[in-house]
């Protein structure tokens, strides 16, 4: 199953108005993404860790997610110090590690982890369906929202379909290798998924017509802003402003 690992919880953060969380997540991520100074990035990292701590999510799960993503970062650490020109800091055989390379890799590591932690703390704690409704209230284009919600709804159906097909292959002794038979089998699998999906889409559309659908979607969602939301929003805006100031001062 495709699971939302972080969306359920009892914490204060889980109870916040999703609109607030979306706004904060976007602003915070954007500021971090365009920042370059460690003076701003290190406090940002601290803030994001605090944000995650507030959600009381399982540390192990969060850590596991970070680990997956940092695999790629590790790859950069193996390359960047030796490919950036600059002051040589150390040498391994013929390779010279530069200070600039190391700085650059550290910057990327901090930025990446900060943004991911923020996403986990703020967006992943909203159930996807609620997220869709909140985006609706935030005036995202409604076509994209319905596309988003429908896609999520049918991912599960199609994932199960995929799973059943792959099992059908396994019980008939299929073992993937690097050969044409393998690729052809996978291509057929994908083709079958597409065909079935297409048919399903047609039936879903008919089911909608049967219930009087007339090119307009309605939602039942209701959200309300509470004191906690306002406090949280104010604190976060202040933090973001702080980061902007730290970063901006350095540019001058």
């Amino acid at each position, binding site marked *: 199953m495709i699971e*939302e690992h972080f969306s359920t919880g009892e914490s204060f953060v889980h109870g916040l108005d999703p609109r607030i969380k979306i706004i904060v997540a*976007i602003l915070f*991520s*954007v500021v971090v*993404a*365009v920042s370059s100074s460690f003076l701003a990035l290190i406090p940002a990292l601290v803030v994001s860790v605090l944000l995650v701590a507030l959600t009381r999510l399982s540390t192990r799960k969060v850590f596991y*997610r970070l680990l*997956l*993503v940092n695999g790629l*970062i590790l790859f*950069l650490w193996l*390359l*960047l110090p030796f*490919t950036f020109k600059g002051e040589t800091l150390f040498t391994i055989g013929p390779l010279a590690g530069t200070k600039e*390379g190391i700085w*650059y890799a550290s910057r*990327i590591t901090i*930025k*990446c*982890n900060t*943004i*991911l932690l923020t*996403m986990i703390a703020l967006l*992943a704690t909203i159930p*996807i369906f609620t997220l869709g409704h909140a985006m609706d209230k935030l005036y995202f284009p409604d*076509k*994209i929202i*319905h*596309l*988003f919600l*429908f*896609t*999520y709804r049918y*991912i599960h*159906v*199609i*994932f199960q379909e*995929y799973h059943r097909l792959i099992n059908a292959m396994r019980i008939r002794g299929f073992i*993937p290798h*690097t050969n*044409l038979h393998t*690729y*052809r089998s*996978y*291509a*057929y*699998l*994908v*083709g079958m*998924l*597409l*065909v079935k*999906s*297409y048919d*399903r*889409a047609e039936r*879903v*559309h008919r089911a909608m017509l049967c219930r009087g659908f007339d*090119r307009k*979607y309605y939602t039942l969602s209701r959200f309300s802003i509470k004191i906690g939301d306002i406090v949280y929003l104010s604190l976060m805006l202040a933090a973001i402003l702080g980061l902007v100031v730290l970063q901006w001062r350095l540019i001058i």
Partner: protein
Amino acid sequence: MHISEGVLSAPVLVAGVAMAAAGVSVGLKKMDYERIPQVAVLSSAFFVASLIHVPIGPSNAHLILNGINGLLLGWLCFPSILVALALQALLFQFGGITVLGINTVNMALPGLICYYLFSRLVNRERGFISLGAAFACGLVAVFLSGILVALSLLFTEESFMSVAKLIVLAHLPVMIIEGIITLFCVAFLKRVKPELLGGIHEKGS
């Protein structure tokens, strides 16, 4: 191929968002409300297909399938890929908010280009032309994606040159496999449900 958060510079990110916004809005215009379920269900199929890992020698790679996505959806592949990437970011924390734009462009633009290059040829009666075009479609789409990823990195920082080269190199075997898979997939669709290849993008508009 996702680019992680925190790697790219502000101008590249902004350019990505702008281009993605343009592509998505054209796509949304072409997608009337009635076709949302269709595009959505196909987007989920592509989302699921991207979880499939195929072996390449001792290693393996996940399918990208942006070629066939473009072939089936035309301009609609922009919203389709955007939504799929957003869900990957939310569910698996692959990629993130600020790179959503550039990642969408890197995958959808090649799809769209392949749609214009190969859609006609793929729909030809003659078997080998059609299948050749399908192979090229899968191959070129991934190749262009690799180039766009490399360019995004180079525009960020010239010292990324060797990383960029490595990335293009890493795309080479994937390209061939995507070509083969697209070929067989198109062969499958032609036999089983040719109306799908005729395009969802043109119907009803």
